[in-house]
């Protein structure tokens, strides 16, 4: 169990663009990807979203994939990010053949379901639309992403709403530590759908302006979409391949808030436990944490309780923290890995992304990172991901 787990590859696509370089540029320049809805077929144009600026057709063409992947946005986004991660780690076909692929998603192919459901339902599954419903479960998305990326040894899918990708990363790390595999490509993918845009709208937690995480006057989420994967590897394997080590995954924990299906407890118990246990595993004290990439969705409930959990750990001397949701939108199941990539970039480039859109503190002293990309030495970062049902997970990346 002593094997150190390191990160040797990154792949990402979000409203900030395709690829690690485009993502880094946008973060440094303070350029948000949140804007008017273009590709999602919805009546709700009043809500800004963090959409990936490509149609399904454009992505399918770019990736050279056909049916059924070309109609499944979660799959297209996933393939783009997974291929970049595998390439950036320099994995050969043999390496992929002994690797695990663990992907998180919740909506899966729901966008395709939406296009065909009513027709299939009204015809009692007799219409030609019915077979289209076969490709839309979460596991199918993972299979299609993985198979377009390489011949993996094994795969599975985590589905814990907005912490799905973080939990995929945790399983991959546990497998490497136990010696089940040396390499795991882990992360998540999630496209925007009418299903969850409307779902979040029924909960009345969508912001009609660009979201303002940790601001006193925040009113909710901008939904986003995207995918990101990181390549986790035992340090021994990375050394023997001569791979560049980008960061280490030194700590992680998953702790359930066990409070409510869609709200978090007032004192942020799940978030508090997840951060504490992750620091324990990493052998770090609160003072060792240089930056917290918060879950920070911009809802009144999430940000207040996440801050309450941080106060329980750091009291009045909060570490630098920010939410990058105003850059990407809330990419739900993919947010854990999208923000993991951002955290690794923060370690590589010694910078902390600003909490754009922030004006007034929630409480005295609760001031997130402001000013374009604060440059400062970053050694240990916390990445929080909290899902519906109180599925709270924390990852710690270190230099």
């Amino acid at each position, binding site marked *: *169990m002593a094997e150190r787990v390191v990160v040797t590859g990154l792949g990402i696509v979000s409203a900030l663009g395709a690829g690690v370089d485009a993502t880094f540029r946008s973060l440094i320049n303070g350029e948000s990807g949140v804007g008017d809805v273009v590709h999602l077929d*919805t*009546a*709700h144009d009043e809500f800004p979203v963090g959409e990936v600026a490509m149609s399904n057709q454009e992505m399918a063409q770019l990736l050279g994939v056909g049916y059924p992947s070309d109609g499944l946005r979660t799959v297209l986004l996933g393939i783009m990010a997974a291929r970049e991660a595998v390439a950036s780690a320099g994995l050969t076909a043999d390496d992929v053949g002994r690797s695990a692929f663990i992907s998180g998603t*919740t909506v*899966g192919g729901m966008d395709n379901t*939406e296009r065909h*459901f*009513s027709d*299939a*339902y009204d015809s*009692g*599954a007799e219409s030609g639309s*019915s*077979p289209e*419903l*076969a490709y839309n*479960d*979460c*596991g199918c998305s*993972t*299979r299609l992403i993985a198979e377009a990326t390489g*011949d*993996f*040894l*094994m*795969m*599975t*899918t*985590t*589905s*814990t*709403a907005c912490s799905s990708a973080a939990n995929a990363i*945790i*399983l991959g790390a*546990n497998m490497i530590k*136990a010696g*089940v595999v040396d390499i795991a490509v882990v992360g998540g993918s999630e496209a925007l759908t*009418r299903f*969850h845009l*409307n*779902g*979040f*709208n*029924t*909960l009345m937690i969508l912001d009609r302006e660009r979201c303002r995480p940790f601001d006193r006057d925040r009113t909710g989420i901008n939904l986003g979409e995207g995918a990101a994967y990181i390549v986790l590897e035992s340090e021994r394997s990375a050394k023997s391949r001569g791979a560049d080590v980008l960061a280490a995954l030194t700590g992680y924990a*998953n*702790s*359930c*808030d*066990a*409070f*409510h*299906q869609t709200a978090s407890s007032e004192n942020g*118990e799940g978030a508090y436990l997840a951060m504490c246990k992750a620091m324990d595993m990493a052998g770090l004290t609160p003072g060792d944490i240089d930056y917290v990439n918060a879950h920070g969705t911009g809802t009144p409930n999430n940000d207040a309780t996440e801050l309450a959990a941080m106060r329980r750990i750091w009291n009045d001397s909060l570490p630098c923290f920010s939410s990058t949701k105003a850059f990407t939108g809330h990419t739900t199941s993919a947010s854990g890995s999208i923000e993991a990539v951002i955290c690794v970039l923060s370690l590589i480039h010694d910078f902390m992304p600003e909490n754009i859109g922030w004006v007034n503190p929630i409480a005295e002293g609760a001031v997130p990172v402001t000013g374009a990309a604060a440059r400062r030495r970053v050694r240990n970062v916390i990445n929080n991901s909290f*899902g*519906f*049902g*109180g*599925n709270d997970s924390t990852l710690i990346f270190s230099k």
Partner: protein
Amino acid sequence: MAERCFVDSLAQISCQKPLCDEWFDTPCFYTDRYVRSVEPDVKGIISASEARRMSRILKRAVCTSVSALRASSVDMPDAVITGTGAGCMENSEKFLVDLGRFGEQCLKPTLFMQSTHNTISSLIAIMMKCHGYNNTYSHKGISFDSALFDAWLQIRSGMIGNALVGSHDEVTPFMELVMRRTHPDCRFVTEASVSAVLTRSRGENTVCEVEDVKLLHKPDISALADLFEEDRDRVLMLGVNGSESNDAPYMSLLDGLRYRPLVLRYRNLFGDCFSASALGFYASCRILERESVPAFMHLPGAEHVSAGPESVTLVNHSDGIDWSIVRLKRVASCGG
């Protein structure tokens, strides 16, 4: 991985009589091609007011979870890990129907809140106030196997002392129609809910030991024979269901073996759905515990297992693509 992993208790809800093992001696065989689970009596497990707010899959999951925990030595699990291939279908389907009929207005928040796959695992944690590890796997027909793998890995590695592992799938009448068109290899479509408590230490009620759990993607079936060399003395429990396309990969596996194994089946009794393999696990554990094999679990024409088997290897594939191999062992013979 220095620790061992034992099954401490189990509970099932299926097309057989729920929350008991009557199927072992008096199984129900159906002529219908689609049978929903026999609903359990929730009295004493869920209050009437709570039950009214829960969809069927949630009620079943709570019933099997509470039953398994009551039968175990564990009060508060270190982890709740759940598999579900399709998640909360009833609620998702209602939300989609409303979205189609009424457009993007006046939709019901409760349907959305209880539509995500992790609703099940979260609800169990919320009811028990369990702050431990909580995860949900949704990967086709190896959803249960993935949840079991996670629990087994963490127990064997010493990260947790025990776990409540379950897998739950509901099949609505519309889903059944879709499955008939899209998964012709399904024969007898059913629903499944299984919960098990796994522990690091062996106790008085230990059912059996989970020695190994492997997940594989598109394995070379001829190369699998090597993997099964160590199973020479074991009984194989296969996910065969009588459909040629479903059974062919299992038959290729058997053809490639360098010995003739004793083979059992469970889907003739428990049927097909994404969580079916959880019932195969359930049945295998009970066979080891009771040291006997019901006659209906033998493949037609195959050699019968005479005495209680020492060990069972559960082999499961999903679409011939994702595979799992689970090795179980009787505790009386595992040497303490």
